[in-house]
C-alpha cells in the first residue's frame, strides 16, 4: 500500500492509504481525528475546513497525496486547552446549537484572522459564506469573530512548526 508522511497538529504522521483518499477521511477514518466533520463531500458546505499551511482548505476536496510533506491544522490542534481566542469567543457568546458545523466555522475564522486580524463585515461575509450552519447561528458567529479579533491577540494560537 502507498504511504504518505505529513504533519498533523504539529506531529509527524505516516498514513498508509491511497493517495486519492480525501484528507477528510484520512483524518476521520485513519487518524480518528473526528473533529473535522463530513457534511457534503463535494466542497459546498465547509464543515470539513482545516488549515493546510496558512490557508483554509476543505478537507473533502484535498487528496492525501496533495498534503504529503505539508502541515495540517485541525480543530483538535487549534489550541492545547481550548483557549484559542476564537474558541473562547465561541463559548463566551454561546454560538453552537447542534455544533456539527462549528469546527469548520472556527477553522475558517482562524484562517481569516491570520490574514485580517480586524475583519470588517464584508471580510466576514467573504470568508465565512463557504461554511453553512443549518442551525442558523451566523449572527452569533459574526459577533464571536469580532470579539476574538478585539479581545484576544492571535499570539496565543498554537502554530505547528
Amino acid at each position: 500500500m502507498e504511504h504518505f508522511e505529513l504533519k498533523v497538529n504539529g506531529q509527524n504522521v505516516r498514513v498508509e492509504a491511497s493517495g486519492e483518499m480525501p484528507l477528510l477521511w484520512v483524518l476521520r477514518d485513519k487518524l480518528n481525528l473526528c473533529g473535522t466533520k463530513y457534511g457534503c463531500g463535494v466542497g459546498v458546505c465547509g464543515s470539513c475546513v482545516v488549515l493546510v499551511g496558512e490557508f483554509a482548505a476543505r478537507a473533502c476536496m484535498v487528496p492525501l497525496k496533495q498534503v504529503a510533506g505539508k502541515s495540517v491544522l485541525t480543530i483538535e490542534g487549534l489550541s492545547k486547552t481550548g483557549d484559542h481566542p476564537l474558541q473562547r469567543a465561541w463559548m463566551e457568546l454561546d454560538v453552537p446549537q447542534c455544533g456539527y458545523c462549528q469546527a469548520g466555522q472556527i477553522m475558517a475564522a482562524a484562517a481569516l484572522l491570520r490574514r485580517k486580524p480586524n475583519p470588517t463585515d464584508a471580510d466576514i461575509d467573504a470568508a465565512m459564506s463557504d461554511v453553512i450552519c443549518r442551525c442558523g447561528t451566523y449572527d452569533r458567529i459574526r459577533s464571536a469573530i469580532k470579539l476574538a479579533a478585539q479581545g484576544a491577540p492571535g499570539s496565543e494560537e498554537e502554530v505547528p512548526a
Partner: protein
Amino acid sequence: MSLESVSRRDVLRVAAVAGTGLVLGCRLASPDSHARNLSHGEAQDGPVFEPNAWLKVLPNDDVVIVVARPDIGQGTRTSMAMIVAEELGVDWRKVKVEQAVADRKYGPMGVGGSASVRGSYAPLRRAGAAAREMLVAAAAAKWGVEASACRAENGVVLSGDNKLAFAALAADAAKLPVPANPTLKDPAAFTIIGKRTSRVDNRDVVTGRAVFGLDVRAVKAFRAAILRPRCFTGRISEFDDTEARKVEGVRDVFQLGTGVVVIGDTTHAAFEGRKRLKTTENPGPAGKVTSASIREAMRAAIQPWPEAPEGKVVEATFELPFLAHAPMEPQNCTVWIHDGVCEIWAPTQVPDSLLGQAARAAEVAPDKVTIHVPLIGGGFGRRLVSDFAMEAIEIAKRVGDPVQLVWSRDDDTRHDYYRPASHHALRAVLDASGKPIHWRHQYIQAGGRTNAGPYRAESLDYGFGSVEARGGSVATPVPTGAWRSVGHSHTGFVYEAFVDELATAAGQDPVAFRLAHIEDPRLRKALELCAEKANWGSKLPNGRGRGVACFADYGSYCVHIVEATMTKGGVKVNRVVSTVDCGIAINPGGVEQQILGGTVDGLSCALRAEITIENGGVVESSYRDFEWFRMKDAPRHEIHRIESRESPGGMGEVGVPGAPAALANAIFAATGTRYRNLPIRLA
C-alpha cells in the same frame, strides 16, 4: 470477513452491566469524556445516591444529571439538566450531564413538537425536589432538627451552623423512601432556571471532542454505503460489482432491499466502491412524476368557492414546495449485533420507539437492545423516522461485525421524508369598516402523512367572525414527514401574508390592523413591543420595506418584523427584530438561539430552498442546489424576550413560521408586489 475490535472487551462489559440494570447501567463505553470519567472514576468505589432515573450524587460531590431527550441542537442537554439542578439545589458547575441510553423508564424520550421542556418540566422538577427532600431529611435526622429548619443550596444542606455536602449525606439519603409529592420551589426563588447558561457541550464542540453519530469510535466498525434507486418507486434490478470490488478497502457488495450495499474499511472505500457499481434501475410505477404534475394535481383539487356574503371580497392562492430537512450531519447509524445482543449508536429523535423496532429487526429480545444516543448534527424532524437505523441493522446482521452506515449528502438530500408541497386558496370578506367577517381556506397537500399538513387552520389568532378551513391531499410517491413547525411551516406564511393583504384591502396599517383584531393579551404585547423596537412606521431608505408577522403556538408567542432591500441580484434581508414570550424561559440564551435559528430557516424557505421532483425522483443533491442561507445572507437579528411567569412554552419551532411572511410583507412594502409562492422568484 473478520475484524479485530479494539474495544470489544469494553463493549461486552458495558452490555453486561446494562443488562443487569445496576446503578451503573447508564455508563457508556463511549469516547465521551464525561462518560469515560464516570466509568473509571471514583463513582464505582463509594455510595451513589440515585433516588430516580434522573440524577445521581457521586461520592466526589459531582452530580450527574441524566438527560433522556436527545439534543438535536435545541439544547435539551442543558435545559433539562437545569430544571433538575434547580430543584435539587446544586452548584451548576458541579453538574455533569449524561445522555440516557434508551429505556422505557424515562417515559417519552422523543424530541418533536417543541415538547421537550413542556413535557419534562413538571417531572424533572419533581425528580430534583424529591432528591433534595431526601438529602434534607438525612441531614435533619443527623443534626436532630426539623427538616423545615434546613435548606439545600449549592450542593450543601445548611441549618444554623450545621453544614454538610450532598455527597456526605448521600448514603443516609439513599435509605429513605422517595417522597411522592415533594414540595416544589417558588419560581421567584429560582437561581438556575431563567439564568443565561452556556451549553454544557460548548467546550467539547469548540475543541472537536464532541461525539456525534458519525464520530462514534467505541467499536472499530466497517463502513457501509448504500446505492439507492433514484426513483421513489425504483429498484436496482441488476448490478455488476466487478470494478467496485477492485477498490482498495472494499470488503463486500450485496443487494439489500431495493438498493446495493458496499462494505469498506473506510468511508472513502465504501463511497468509491459504490461509485464504481454498474447498475440498472427499474423506476417502477412513478417514474414519470414531476413537481409540475404534482402542482397541477393540487390545483385541480381546489373546489370553486360558494357564494360569499356581501362586502369586499379578497382572494389569493399560495404555493409551497417540498423541502428536505438537510441536517448538517447526514443520516448514519453504528450497529453491532453479537451473542444475542444488539448495540446501536443512533442519532435519532426517538430513542424509545426505536427500541422495539430495533429488537424486531435485529431479531433479539427487547431487553437485549442498547441504544446509545450521541450528539446529533441537526434534526428538524428528519430523525423522527428511523429508516437509517433499520438499514444499519439489516447490514449488521449480514456482516456480523460492527458496521457504521454512512449516508452521503446526496443520499440525505434525495431520500428524505420531505415537508409536503402544498397549495392554498383563501378568500375573505371585509365589511364596510374593513373588518374581516368571513374567512375561508382550502388547502391541498402533496403526500398522505396525516401530520404533515396545515393543522391549525381553524384556530386563527384573530377574531375574524366566520372562519372555516378544509383540506385534502393528493397522492404522490414522494415520502413526506414532519418538518420543523410542521403544518405551521405552511400556514404561518400563508395566513400572515394573507392577513397583510386584508390590511391593505382595509386601507389600514399592517400592525394597527392586527392589533385591532388580536384578542390574546400575550400576542398583543409581543406585537406592540416588536413594533416599538423595530421603529415601525419610521421612514426607510428607498427600495427598503418593512413587514410584520405574528405567530402563536406550542405555548409560546413570536412576532417578527423584517426589513429588506431590493437589490440587483434579488432581495437582501437587512434587519430582523423579534419578540418572544415563552412563559418561564429555562435558558434565556437558548430561547434566543431558537428564534435566531428558526428565523434563518424561515427566511431560507422564503428565498432559497426547494426540492424539485423530476422523473419520479429528487433533482437536488446537496447544498449546491438545495440552498440555505449563508453568512452573506444572514441579517442582523435583535431578539427581545418578554419576562413571564406563565408555564414554559415550546421553543424549537416558534421562530420559523412567521419569518417568510414578514419577509414577503416587507417585499410588498418595498415594491407593491405580492409574492405568494415560495421560494420567492422575483419578477
